């Protein structure tokens, strides 16, 4: 019997990561001295599942590590040991460590055990069993040469009801080495009183193997609570002179440590509690271990999505409706054409349109997850950083049930971490400063998510000191981003923090301040078709607002015509569309026209020029101008005509071709033709417009070829 266990690895990792997330969340809820038994039980169960699973799959490094953790939890649960803040810290650390080990294993790499061993030793010190286990493990390591073990296995009668089959364990034992089996059936009652569902047999095995004792214990891992197991060493083949009695005595200790009896172990069924949770699986946040092949890790994170059964049910309903409508339509199609059939056909088509739209919405919903999956990592982060910085911080999470697309979610989490770190490091003051400023010494960071007109808005607010506009300004001048003479409004100055290579932190800390921050944040968010803005008031706090489309797969687009070509401009970037008043256009430089629109000067980009299309209308007064905004930067796109507005499904142009500058993707229009979607910020870059930190736009000398 050899089942290929590797097919279950993915599930194991997924569940383990979930378990770790649960442990982490519960640990953060623990208050030493006032701990809730249910919380500790949840943590214990999660740890136990991971231990059991990793043992089954042969990840002994993980199961050994979790074992120590579990022992401590067990003692706390039984009241033998009081929970201290130190314990919580160690437990949190070990959650990180486990996550690192599992990530490495998932990427099929050897986990780095230095940290694990360190933490384990400290746990052992706490548990006061450091000496015991070190000898155990020495023994375990040393028993590499062949030894003969005597294994006494006496299952409790209810063993079969727990779904365990001794025969499998015996054949697994046989795989370890040479096995001699004795069975004791003296407990078997006579046939009349025999209950076939109970186990009355007991076994004694003599196993000669080069595997350590832990390998044997592992086989019995799942039944250790449902049976008496005793593993004793009978002396190796090569040192038969060793007195059996001595070896037995030694080995008894071994067994005690390597298979503890956890009396109060909840029934295994309870472990499935986490699995009954119908919510969708969390996107795996693979905190990338240093030596992890990140590509592999990200690949594995994209493999699966757990969908609530209600969502699937409603999909099946929709498809049922669709089938009925289709049947109705084909029935109408078979009839003779009369006025009544035409009316019926039209009704049927309307219903079909309705069904299709419902179906589309429902399919989209499958990819939607509540943002709490991202938010849930922040309590830990805030706790760790505030401890490091000696600041008192309260984290408020609002709108956790707001749903957004899984892909967007995975990509938004890193920029958010960055913004929250920034708020903690730069935004919030130390308690002393806060008291001096007449504020509550406890600072507040609020994460808020809500929907607003087809977008999701995420706000990261702190009630700290706000952005230091003076400092930003002087730094920007020092970095050459702006000139001394430039007069900028406070908002414009605050904008500067999103420029590349900008950091105001005087000292580089390991939390933030390396100056590779905000511009990357902005770039990442823009890559998702979103935007990020900052609002700040000195002494009151600052708010970062991230706006994102709900999904990356569908976009509201404005179809425009340029010469004979149809392009799509994302509706979210359009500010307005207008006819050009030729008297308000002035020519700047060699070939840039600028339109004065109310108080602003809008550079006019001739799309046909940028895209090298012939046959477009060139006279400004006969065309239309679509004013679009990207990076707080408005430009007008010259188009021949505005066509319809419609939702378009984004398709990749890169998949079969390559990246095209100024184009973010393609879509298929109602008539089956391909149309390209304009990438506004890429287009501005392509046009050669530049913005050196001031409002003024200058034209870069274009190469002769492009003009």
């Amino acid at each position, binding site marked *: 019997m050899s089942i290929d266990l590797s097919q279950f690895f993915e599930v194991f990792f997924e569940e383990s990561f979930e378990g770790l997330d649960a442990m982490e969340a519960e640990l953060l809820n623990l208050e030493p001295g006032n701990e809730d038994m249910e919380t500790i039980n949840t943590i214990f169960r999660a740890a136990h599942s991971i231990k059991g699973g990793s043992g089954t799959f042969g990840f002994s490094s993980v199961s050994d590590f979790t074992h120590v953790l579990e022992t401590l939890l067990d003692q706390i649960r039984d009241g033998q040991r009081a929970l201290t803040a130190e314990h919580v810290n160690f437990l949190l650390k070990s959650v990180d460590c486990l996550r690192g080990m599992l990530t490495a294993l998932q990427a099929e790499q050897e986990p780095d055990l230095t940290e694990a061993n360190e933490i384990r030793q400290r746990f052992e010190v706490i548990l006061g069993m450091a000496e015991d286990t070190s000898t155990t493990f020495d023994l375990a390591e040393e028993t590499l040469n062949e030894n003969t073990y005597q294994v006494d296995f006496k299952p409790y009668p209810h063993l079969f009801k727990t779904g365990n089959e001794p025969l499998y364990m015996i054949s697994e034992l046989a795989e370890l080495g040479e096995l001699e089996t004795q069975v004791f059936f003296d407990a078997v009652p006579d046939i009349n009183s025999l209950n076939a569902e109970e186990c009355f047999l007991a076994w004694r095995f003599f196993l000669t193997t080069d595997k350590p004792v832990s390998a044997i214990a592992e086989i019995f891992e799942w039944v250790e609570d449902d049976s008496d197991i005793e593993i004793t060493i009978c002396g190796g083949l090569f040192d038969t002179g060793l007195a059996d009695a001595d070896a037995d005595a030694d080995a008894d200790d071994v067994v005690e440590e390597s298979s503890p009896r956890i009396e109060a172990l909840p029934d295994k069924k309870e472990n499935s509690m986490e699995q009954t949770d119908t919510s969708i699986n969390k996107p795996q946040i693979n905190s990338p271990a240093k030596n992890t092949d990140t590509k592999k890790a990200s690949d594995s994170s994209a493999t699966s999505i757990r969908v609530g059964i209600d969502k699937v049910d409603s999909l099946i309903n929709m498809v049922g409706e669709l089938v009925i409508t289709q049947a109705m339509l084909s029935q109408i199609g078979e009839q003779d054409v009369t006025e009544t059939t035409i009316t019926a056909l039209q009704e049927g088509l309307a219903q079909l349109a309705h069904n299709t739209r419902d179906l589309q919405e429902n399919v989209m919903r499958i990819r939607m997850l509540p943002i709490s999956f991202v938010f849930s990592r922040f309590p830990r982060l805030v706790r760790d950083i505030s401890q490091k910085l000696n600041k008192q911080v309260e984290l408020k999470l609002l709108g956790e049930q707001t749903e957004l697309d899984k892909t967007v979610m995975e990509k938004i989490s890193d920029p958010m971490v960055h913004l929250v770190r920034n708020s903690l490091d730069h935004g919030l003051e130390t308690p002393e400063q806060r008291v001096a400023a007449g504020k509550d010494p406890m600072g507040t960071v609020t994460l808020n998510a809500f929907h607003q007109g087809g977008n999701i808005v995420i706000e990261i607010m702190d009630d700290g000191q706000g952005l230091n506009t003076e400092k930003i300004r002087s730094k920007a001048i020092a970095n050459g981003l702006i000139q001394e003479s430039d007069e900028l409004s406070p908002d414009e100055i605050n904008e500067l923090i999103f420029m590349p290579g900008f950091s105001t932190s005087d000292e580089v800390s390991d939390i933030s301040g390396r100056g590779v921050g905000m511009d990357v944040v902005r770039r990442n968010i823009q890559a998702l078709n979103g935007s990020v803005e900052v609002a700040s008031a000195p002494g009151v706090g600052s708010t970062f607002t991230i706006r994102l489309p709900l999904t990356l797969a569908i976009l509201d687009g404005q179809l425009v015509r340029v010469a004979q070509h149809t392009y799509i401009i994302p509706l979210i970037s359009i500010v307005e569309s207008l006819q050009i008043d030729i008297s308000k256009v002035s020519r700047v430089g060699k070939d840039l026209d600028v339109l004065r629109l109310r108080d602003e000067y809008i550079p006019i980009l001739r799309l046909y020029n*940028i895209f090298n299309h012939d046959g477009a209308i060139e006279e400004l007064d006969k065309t239309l101008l679509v004013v679009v905004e990207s990076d707080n930067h408005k430009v007008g796109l010259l188009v021949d005509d505005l066509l319809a507005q419609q939702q378009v499904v984004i398709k990749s142009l890169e998949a079969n071709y390559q990246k095209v500058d100024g184009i973010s993707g393609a879509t298929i229009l109602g008539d089956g033709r391909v149309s390209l979607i304009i990438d506004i910020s890429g287009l501005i870059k392509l046009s050669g417009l530049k913005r050196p930190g001031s409002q003024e736009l200058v034209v870069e000398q274009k190469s002769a070829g492009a003009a």
Partner: protein
Amino acid sequence: MSEQVEQISQLVLEGQHDENQYLTFMMADEEYGMNILAVQEIRGWEDVTAIPNAPSFVKGAINLRGTIVPIIDLRLRFGLADNDYGPLTVVIVVAVEINGQNKVMGIVVDAVSDVYSISEEQAKDVPDFQDSDNAEFVHGLVNVGEKMVVLLNLESVLNL
């Protein structure tokens, strides 16, 4: 037609392990061949959507059952004089692996010609075109009866 089919199946039957089948097509009175396993389908010419600032041999993109597929004019790719597209102009949709990525592309040729089984030995006969830009596109030259067929290396032809 049925004769041709027979001929082809004959060729298939004769095909041995070291033989590959090549689909040949005409372009400016020359016959070119490509490994038939790369061919996905053969379509007539249809209007394409132009891709801005693309090289002249990239005619644009079409919708192939929901996938965006770029169309390459092989005449222009090889620097030959371009031809008007007519009802007989053919687009061969091919799947190739370029830099480790599987891409589906369409290539415009004058007409599809035939299918031959050609052994790798015959195909290896590559003359030395030191000063030709297109040398990397050629996998080999092979004689089929009276005709000479240029076997193409699609990966480099389509590595834009």
